[in-house]
């Protein structure tokens, strides 16, 4: 196994182009487990810790551009007001030690449906910036994953940053785990309300081969909010609407039985979380947020 250092983004891209099988490592919170447990022996590791620009975030034109290696602790501590859904989800990642090292780039690269930060990114239509020596491109997070542990990255590409729209309304995230801290998601749900556009964003975590948008639930809620004049009135949401929203969210899940929970429970829990997060987000909206 070789170990490749990159001192800059250009060096990193050059190294990746030269050695496409090299696996990028930043926080190491996923990859090192695979190395320690003898599950994976890549021919080379490409260390991104030396690439300073990956650890920076900036806000421009209503978008927060979060470097791929900004750790979760900084997302929680520095930009929670800009990307509240992502911040709530980030707080549920692993432990403090993991949050000090784990990154969005890592969760995107690992492409596990249980990546806690992924549902809020999909929910708000975040974009992933990827690049290679051949050039840069952006991919919608919702289109980034092609299956469990699979994504659209070409062998010579690296993840540069994630562009997350600054919140224009309430955002929520909930995650079920069988322990009250430091737990892999049994299933999760992210919700974002976008009063300025009338949009509703959703995404289900850990209940399918990839994170999944609950499209029909979004469409139902968007239609009902618009038709009922609820964005303007900020009136209480009808109970049947909330129940139906939960049901549709649940139907969008494609869960399996596994060691962390059953498919049936996941479907049930997604419905409950969808309903509850909607209740909290709407309460925020009624309270004047957005």
């Amino acid at each position, binding site marked *: 196994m070789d170990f490749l250092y990159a001192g800059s983004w250009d060096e990193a891209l050059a190294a990746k182009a030269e050695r496409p099988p090299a696996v990028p490592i930043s926080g190491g919170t996923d990859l090192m*487990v695979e190395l320690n447990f003898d599950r994976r022996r890549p021919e080379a590791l490409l260390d991104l810790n030396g690439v300073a620009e990956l650890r920076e975030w900036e806000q421009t034109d209503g978008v927060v551009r979060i470097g791929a290696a900004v750790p979760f602790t900084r997302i929680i501590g520095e930009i929670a007001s800009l990307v509240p859904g992502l911040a709530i989800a980030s707080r549920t990642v692993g432990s403090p030690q993991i949050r000090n*090292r784990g990154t969005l780039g890592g969760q995107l690269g690992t492409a596990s449906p249980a990546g806690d930060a992924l549902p809020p990114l999909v929910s708000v239509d975040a974009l992933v910036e990827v690049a290679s020596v051949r050039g840069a491109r952006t991919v919608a997070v919702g289109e980034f994953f092609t299956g469990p542990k699979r994504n659209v990255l070409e062998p010579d590409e690296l993840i540069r940053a994630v562009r997350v729209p600054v919140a224009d309304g309430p955002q929520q995230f909930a995650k079920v785990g069988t322990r009250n801290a430091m737990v892999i998601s049994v299933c999760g749900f992210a919700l974002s309300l976008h009063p300025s556009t009338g949009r509703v964003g959703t995404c289900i975590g850990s209940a399918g081969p990839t994170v999944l948008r609950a499209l029909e639930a979004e469409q139902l809620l968007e239609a009902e909010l618009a038709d009922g004049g609820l964005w303007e009135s900020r009136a209480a949401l009808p109970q049947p609407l909330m129940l139906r929203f939960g049901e549709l969210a649940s139907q969008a899940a494609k869960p399996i039985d596994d060691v962390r929970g059953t498919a049936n429970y996941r479907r049930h829990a997604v419905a409950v979380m969808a309903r509850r997060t909607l209740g909290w987000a709407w309460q925020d909206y009624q309270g004047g947020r957005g």
Partner: protein
Amino acid sequence: MRITFEVNGTTQSADDVWPGESLLYVLRERLGLPGTKNACEQGECGSCSIYLDGTLVCACLVAAPQAHGREVRTVESFAGADGLDPVQQAFIDCGAVQCGFCTPGLILATDDLLARNPQPADAEIREALAGNLCRCTGYEKILDAVRLASARRVAGGDEPS
């Protein structure tokens, strides 16, 4: 490969490091610093907590070559010539140590918490230490120790490092 980094204020090198080796392994097996513990090697227990450039991390999840040129601080640095660190003393005084395997990691995590938040509420202590598993104590005496260390540091005017 050869890696060189600063450990507890001293520059150290290790030769013949396999690139997939964890920083935990290098500290424990190559540099003679076994105080950082190896309980799970998957970031799920906190026993190998160290400071890497001042940030609390699990040493098992840092590839050793990633530490090249950086600063590492381990539990071995906490007690000085004038005795134990207040956090260490509080763990002893409160009966927060049984088998002790989780203790070095908890010393680090507590130090990190008190540096950020000198007088944490119980819920804050629990969230901050949720990454450090203890199988012996049931955590009650660990909470006692953090409260005591906090009180002593505040009373002693000990500036968070």
